Each structure stands twice: as C-alpha cells, then as structure tokens.
C-alpha cells in the first residue's frame, strides 16, 4: 500500500491561515489501512483543527468527507456540487489523490494534510516498511524475491557493499542489509548461480527518471 505520516498540526494550521471554511477529505484506500487518512482520521483532525482555531479566537467551519478513493474520477465527482461552497480542501489522501482532486476541481485550493511515504507493508500495528520503488522493471525472480533497488541503500546490483555489517546496513543499524537478505534467500533457494552473473546497467528510463510515467493498456482502453 501507499503509506504516509500526518503533517504536524502547526504546519496544517499555518496552511489554513487564509481560510475560514474548508473541506477535510479522507480516502478509504491505502491511507485508511495505514491509519493516516481514513474517516476516523478525518474526524480527529477536524475536531483538532476546530479546537485549535476556536481557542485562537478564529473559528473554522469544516465539512468532513471520506471518499471511496481519491485516485479514481468517479469517486471525486460527488464533491462537485458543493466543493466551491468551501474556500479550500485539506486532503489526507496520498499525493496522487490530492493531485487528482486538484486537477478535477481547478478552482479549489488543495492542501496536503499528510506527507506521503512509500510503497510498503505493515510489519505490525504502527510500523510500516518500504518494499517497492515502482522502477518499472522488476527483477525479483533473480534476487530471491527481495528488491535490490529498494532494500539496498545504494540500489546496487552486485552487493553487498563494504558497509554491510553482520546483516545490517551502514546507513542505520535498524535497517537490514538488502544484499545479505538476497544472499540468504538465494542460498535457501539454491539459486546462488544468479549471484555470479554480471547484471546489465539498469535502465532507469522505466523509473521516474524517464519523466512522469503513463500506462496504457490497449486491451482495456
């Protein structure tokens, strides 16, 4: 899922400075699962903002909504009739959802209420870790199901580097060395032959370096 973290209340209050009536919009997708942008978070954030603003002597009116998804046009449409009744929208969906809403409703200022994180997994309640950078050219079949691009701090293709110490990365003792994980897994799978092969330079053009990406599935258009 796409993960994220709440922006500090102070930062949000600063963004809201020009406004007196806004929409706080959540999303029932990824951000609900990682507990940063669902309907519950909409309620808590809205209450918090109302309290903070009223205590500061300047009330704010908030409409609380939570959309099925902010990244699909059909779920945004229901906002059209009322969105311009409000001065701005504070969205706590991921960056994709926020931008899509901004595109669809060009007259409404869109404010981000969270910092979007990464494509990750839930290790346990309250802990998420990164797994995929969406580089557009998956090699997991060669690397024991562990991604060198994401799990290695240097994204190298022939690791581990000299900074691997007892299975941890030089960058952070709490982070496992991706290449140690790959090698352990290749040994388990009896696939160490894969390790001994020189790998071609990665084509980053399928990654973000090629510019904003687009997928067109002719079979589905």
């Amino acid at each position: 899922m796409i993960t994220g973290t709440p922006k500090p209340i102070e930062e949000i209050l600063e963004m809201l400075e020009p406004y007196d009536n806004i929409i706080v919009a959540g999303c029932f997708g990824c951000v609900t699962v990682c507990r940063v942008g669902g309907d519950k978070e909409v309620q808590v954030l809205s209450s918090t903002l109302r309290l903070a603003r009223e205590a500061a002597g300047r009330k704010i009116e908030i409409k609380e909504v939570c959309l099925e998804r902010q990244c699909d046009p059909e779920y945004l449409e229901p906002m059209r009739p009322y969105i311009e009744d409000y001065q701005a929208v504070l969205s706590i969906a991921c960056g994709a959802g926020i931008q899509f809403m901004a595109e669809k409703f060009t007259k409404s200022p869109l404010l981000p209420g969270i910092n979007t994180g990464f494509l990750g997994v839930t290790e346990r309640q309250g802990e998420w870790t990164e797994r995929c950078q969406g580089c557009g050219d998956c090699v997991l079949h060669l690397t024991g199901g562990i991604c060198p691009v994401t799990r290695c701090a240097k994204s190298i293709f022939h690791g581990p580097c000299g900074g691997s110490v007892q299975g941890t990365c030089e960058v952070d003792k709490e982070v496992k060395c991706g290449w140690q994980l790959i090698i352990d897994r290749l040994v388990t799978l009896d696939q160490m032959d894969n390790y001994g092969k020189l790998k071609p330079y990665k084509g980053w053009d399928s990654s973000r370096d090629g510019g904003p990406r687009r997928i067109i599935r002719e079979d589905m258009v």
Partner: protein
Amino acid sequence: MLPCTGRIDESLLLKAFENGADGVMVIGCLEGDCHYVNGNIRARARVERVYNILEQINIGPERIRMYNLSAGEGAKFAAFTSEFVTRVEELGPSPINLARSNGPKESEQEVQAT
C-alpha cells in the same frame, strides 16, 4: 451509552471538548479485568493520543485523564471524581470556553463506561 471504554475513540473525546467540556475523565475497568479482554488498554492508548493532541494545540493536556476502577469501588470513584474536578477547577475554563467568552462555566462532562 458505551458498552466498554474500548469503544471510545479519539474523535469522541475531542468532541467532548468541542461541546464545551473543560475536562474529560475516562473511567475504565481495572487493567487485566476487561470483560472484552483489552478494551481498557486500547482506551488508555487513545486517551494518550488525545493528551498529545491537546498539548499540541495548547488546550492543556491535563484536561483529560483516564482512571481505572472496579464496579464495586464507589468510594474510590467519588474520590477520583472530586480530585479531577478540583484539578480542572484549578485550571479554569478551557481556552475554547474562554474564546466563546461567555465567562467561566461549570461544564465538566464525564464519559463513563463500565
């Protein structure tokens, strides 16, 4: 009516302040004694989160507090309540109520669950 403090979530507690509470007391069963296994433990975590929110927005974190009691501890309940009310009276009206500028109000609310 709440069946268990485990049903209380952060938004409900914040709503109490929005509705004019100067302080909120959450009273749950004794830890380890929850009828629903760990409802009161969850409540404690949520109260802590609200505590942090109130601190961040300068409402005063000490306006919320969780107590644990068994149903048979009437005297203790009275003592805790008096203690908390005294504490909140010392703090005075919440900044929300001050802003609403109707002067100080007697408006402690208690969300109680057993």
